[in-house]
């Protein structure tokens, strides 16, 4: 049995490869992973688990999406606190960017907003209007103004999420299609907002973790 871990800031993705080759997929809050007593063959991610070989996240993303995307493709991973994209040309790595560590307009902020305003993720819907979220703090201010002017928290947060989708598309250099990896795959409001700008194909949350598996 071999364990592989993508330890995100908020959630950890674990793939266990059993001796018969069967793969088991788990998502857990990262803060609970240390207590599991597991040993990992390879890890990646912001959280520091020193009991495995640590892989570069961009490399893990590039390896994980092999065979899952077109020869010419832009793959974007949007997580709790950072965004990174890779462009392949003729199946070869051509370009990349990583917004390093600004969490102001990523998953953690959306989770905090949902908790703060007691809003369920499912209740967010794609809206035409978007807030500028280049600076997430200014984006938060827009939400507060909007709600104080009578807008529902759901709609105000949806505008913020639309802003993140637009920012993401711009950050990835406005491609015609994005292969999306990471937690935002499960945020319908985000995916629908992103589809206003480009085609979107969802890769799910385990791409980086799959990129750790060499066999």
């Amino acid at each position, binding site marked *: 049995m071999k364990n592989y871990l993508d330890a995100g800031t908020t959630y950890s993705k674990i793939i266990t490869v059993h001796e018969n080759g069967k793969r088991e997929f788990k998502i857990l809050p990262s803060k609970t992973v240390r207590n599991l007593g597991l040993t990992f063959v390879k890890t990646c991610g912001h959280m520091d688990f020193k009991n495995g070989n640590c892989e*570069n996240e961009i*490399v893990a993303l590039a390896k994980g999406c092999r065979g899952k995307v077109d020869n010419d493709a832009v793959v974007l991973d949007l997580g709790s606190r950072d965004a990174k994209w890779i462009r392949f040309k003729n199946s070869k790595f051509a370009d990349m960017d990583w917004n390093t560590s600004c969490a102001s307009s990523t998953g953690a902020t959306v989770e905090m907003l949902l908790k703060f305003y007691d809003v369920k993720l499912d209740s967010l819907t794609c809206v035409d209007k978007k807030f500028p979220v280049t600076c997430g703090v200014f984006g938060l201010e827009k939400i507060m103004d909007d709600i104080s002017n009578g807008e529902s928290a759901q709609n105000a947060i949806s505008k913020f999420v639309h802003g993140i989708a637009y920012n993401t598309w711009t950050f990835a250099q406005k491609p015609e299609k994005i292969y999306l990896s990471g937690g935002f795959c499960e945020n319908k409001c985000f995916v629908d907002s992103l589809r206003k700008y480009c085609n979107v194909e969802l890769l799910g949350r385990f791409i980086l973790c799959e990129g750790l598996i060499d066999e």
Partner: protein
Amino acid sequence: MKIGFWGYPNPDIVKSLDEKNPQWIDLDIDFGYPESNILPDAYCKIIKNIIDNAIHLKPDLIVATIGKDKCDSGWFASCILKDLGFNVIQSKFEDISLRRPTPVSTSDLPLRKKVELITGQIIKPTKLPVIKQCHAKFGFWGVPPNDLSILELFPNETHVFGWTKCVEAGVPADVELEMEVEKNLPIVFYSQAFCAKSQLAKYLAKKHDGLYIDIDDYATNSVRAKIEAFLRLR
């Protein structure tokens, strides 16, 4: 006598001052002295080093490079230091008529060693032994970074381009040479954040399908990972 300098001072000025057997101090380097807060927070770290080092080390004389061989920020820094009471000689070295060979840039030495060897030759050039050459697998384009440790991420088979190569060639103002890179080589185009050369770095990275990075002060883990990923995936 302590003489502070930055960039690539005119060799004639260096020669005339060298007769006094001074201690030369490269003010470009981050020695970790306290910030003087004279310049804005968001500003080129190299220029901030120059000002902070001068304030702390109080050199008897400063040879300030201000021409096309450095940048306008260097010129403004020289004016500020003069106004603060320092004894400043402004230097320009824009002669690009004679390019020397650049064996260090194309050698198989570790990249950091290459860059340190090149900058170490500015004031007191010494005859170098024959250095083993290598075919390049990667390229590094730019000025010597404030955070020299990023150079340790590169393999030895990394050739040096940009201003650092111009320095080895003895033509720090030669923008044609500065823009010249080996075709089809994966190259990291580096600029110090808030440096005017970021124009060139970004432009050339796009032109040559390389990686553009700018770093303010010291590299974050993510910037290191970005360089590492580029080197591994290309």
